[in-house]
């Protein structure tokens, strides 16, 4: 028997101290950790969604058959005939979409609070997890094998073509051929149910372990746990986390039971819908590719990805770590840049939708269009903001914050614009009816 198992005062609190969860959390946590605004609970929400996805995914696997003949009909069976099938399907679908969103917000939270400081490994793991989340969402998108998923995946896979040298081969390896077919379906299925979730589980455990090893939530260097007011993790942290998890589950179940997951008609491999869009989390790339393939399909996303990976190695300013948007005196720069970026974005889009500008550009060599379009424009604005802030404010953290703010405005903006696009990729306001002009 372990010492103290039946000792006097064997209250819940004492027993909780021996809980497995204390491998994850320290016994005492700084009171700052408990404040909801510190992290917004985004990591816990994302982890909860991952576990929900794993559980509901296993249930879906019981019925799903990954062959072109059976994939659609087994999805129909799940949707219409299997007991709670539609609910589990909706749960899986909405949790999947939500996880992409919360993982993205979690990434932004870590960035905007400077929490990557001297945590190069965990930042890299986190980025890897975000890419895995996108990969899982994308591979899962094909599996219902309806008109929507078939063509969305075809369009997204074609985006790979814009990566120079290796893009074409990458696409062939992913699809097992030139188009979406049986080979692609079984590959996506394998990636979705075995390879990517396995990898994800491993990385999640490493990610959680690193948080503990790095000393919990980020705070300014030199301020150890000793210097800060603390509270016992049980009940103050663990109960808060439990409440958050239950709230997430409740909301998910509520949404899943009232909003069913969409299921289109069987795929018509000769007739794509018009417009044919990628899943929403790749819409910004599709939008940028519609301006310029090399910039939108490779330079912009590549630049964002590489700078994110290099960030903790290059930006090592210790001031303001753990605070939203850095030092209080310099936050105004972030707000100003956000407003400026929004103005630039609207200006670029407005210019680029003018018929005169487009026809003037199409009469010039392709290089003009590659350089003069909203995607290149926003990239230049980001670089310019970075340089200007670096010189004016003399803080690399603020310069990075400002540049990323511009990029976030661009990515969100392009997603919204692409979402509004109608047939022939013509822009329509959400309240306008889609109709072909002329």
């Amino acid at each position, binding site marked *: 028997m372990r010492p103290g198992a039946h000792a006097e005062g064997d209250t819940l609190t004492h027993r909780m101290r021996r809980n497995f969860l204390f491998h994850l959390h320290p016994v005492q946590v700084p009171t700052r950790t408990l404040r909801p605004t510190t992290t917004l609970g985004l990591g816990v929400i994302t982890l909860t969604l991952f576990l929900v996805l794993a559980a509901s995914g296993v249930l879906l696997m019981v019925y799903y058959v990954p062959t072109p003949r059976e994939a659609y009909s087994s999805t*129909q069976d799940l949707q219409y005939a299997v007991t709670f099938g539609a*609910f589990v399907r909706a749960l899986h679908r909405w949790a999947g979409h939500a996880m992409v969103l919360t993982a993205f917000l979690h990434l932004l939270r870590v960035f905007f609070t400077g929490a990557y400081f001297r945590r190069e490994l965990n930042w890299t793991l986190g980025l890897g997890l975000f890419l895995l989340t996108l990969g899982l969402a994308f591979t899962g998108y094909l599996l219902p094998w309806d008109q929507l998923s078939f063509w969305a995946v075809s369009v997204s896979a074609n985006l790979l073509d814009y990566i120079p040298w290796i893009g074409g081969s990458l696409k062939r390896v992913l699809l097992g051929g030139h188009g979406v077919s049986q080979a692609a379906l079984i590959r996506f299925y394998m990636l979705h149910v075995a390879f990517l979730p396995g990898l994800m589980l491993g990385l999640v455990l490493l990610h959680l372990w690193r948080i503990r090893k790095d000393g919990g939530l980020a705070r300014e260097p030199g301020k150890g746990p000793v210097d800060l007011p603390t509270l016992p993790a049980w*009940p103050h942290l663990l*109960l808060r986390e439990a409440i958050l998890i239950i*709230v997430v589950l*409740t909301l998910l*179940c509520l949404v899943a*039971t009232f909003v069913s997951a969409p299921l289109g*008609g069987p795929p018509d491999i000769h007739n794509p819908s018009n417009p044919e869009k990628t899943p929403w989390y790749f819409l910004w790339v599709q939008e940028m590719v519609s301006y310029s393939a090399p910039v939108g399909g490779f330079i912009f996303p590549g630049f964002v990805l590489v700078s994110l990976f290099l960030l903790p190695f290059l930006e090592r300013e210790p001031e303001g770590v753990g605070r939203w948007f850095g030092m209080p005196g310099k936050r105004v720069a972030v707000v100003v840049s956000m407003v400026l970026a929004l103005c630039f974005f609207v200006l670029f889009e407005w210019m680029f939708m003018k018929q005169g500008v487009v026809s003037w550009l199409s009469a010039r060599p392709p290089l003009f269009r590659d350089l003069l379009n909203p995607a290149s424009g926003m990239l230049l604005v980001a670089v310019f903001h970075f340089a200007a802030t670096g010189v004016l404010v003399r803080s690399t953290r603020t310069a990075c914050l400002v540049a990323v703010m511009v990029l976030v405005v661009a990515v969100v903006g392009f997603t919204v614009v692409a979402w509004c696009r109608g047939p022939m990729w013509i822009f329509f306001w959400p309240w306008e009816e889609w109709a072909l002009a002329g």
Partner: protein
Amino acid sequence: MPDDEREREHRRLRVCFLIAAGALLCVLVLVVIRAEQAPWRVLQKEFLGMGLPGTDEEMELGIRQYYTCASEVDRCSTCHLGIERRDLGDDNIPIPFRAHGPGLGGHLPNRIGCSSCHGGSGRALDPGVAHGLADARAKDPLMGQPHIQASCARCHVPGAREGQERLEQGAWLYLGLGCLLCHPLTDGGRGGLDFGPDLKMIGRKGLGYLKTSLIEPNENFPGSTMPSFRLALDKELEATENLLIYLESLVLDRYPACGTREKSQGMVGKPCATCHAGQEGRASGRLKHRCTYILRGAAELRCTNCHSSGIPPTGRGQGYCPLVKQHREGCSACHDGAARAPM
């Protein structure tokens, strides 16, 4: 933080936890209630509550399913519970529970399902989807007359049986208007690409679209070289609808394994023996063509110019009829794959 404040905080957290857990439990109960309220369950309860002869409130029904000729699952009878019960043909019985009207013939639901003829999405149990096409949410036109006649072509030659007159007239129009000169039927008798676009899926577009395409071809396809059929069809909405019914039949998969399929449909497998009755499948030279189009269009085709002995031509099949040979692609209007068949 002082101890008593911590204790209060702990109590507050516990209350929040209990409230959240209670909410989750309520939502889970709601999930179960919602699943119980699936439309087909509600309808089955209603059916059992009607106290019809041969039913009992304790009866267990559940999801009932049949299989179509192509072995597709068909769950229509889960809600259409009286469809096979001849005693429930009374007009007072509401529609989902009433027996099938006359004209079912040998097409028993338990043998060929419902969606073989009525279209829709037979796997679905959501009425909106089940009665429509899974992607459209609008009612499948095949659900009612006269468009249901398009389904006959899945097994029967248009015009071979009674009750498919509109389909037959549509097929005849396709030949008579010369549609297949540009829009062939080389793809298994159901479309194909030649001078004009493939018409395999145009049946899904509806009457308005088809009418525009025929009267004002440039409207749907700017720059189209197709001639306008204004003179032939402008006032003939019924004829256009017949053509649409025929085009709708091109969308549907054929049921080659169907037991009642006319023998002449087997042209893909044994092309010669289908027309030339032979021994052990070998052609022996006697043309026994009973094609409805040749029979009824004999005057128009001027068959008697050559076949003085009467119609159908039963002479030796040596000098293939040049007219039929020239227009043999027209055979595909009924016969899948006939374009490759020697005539």
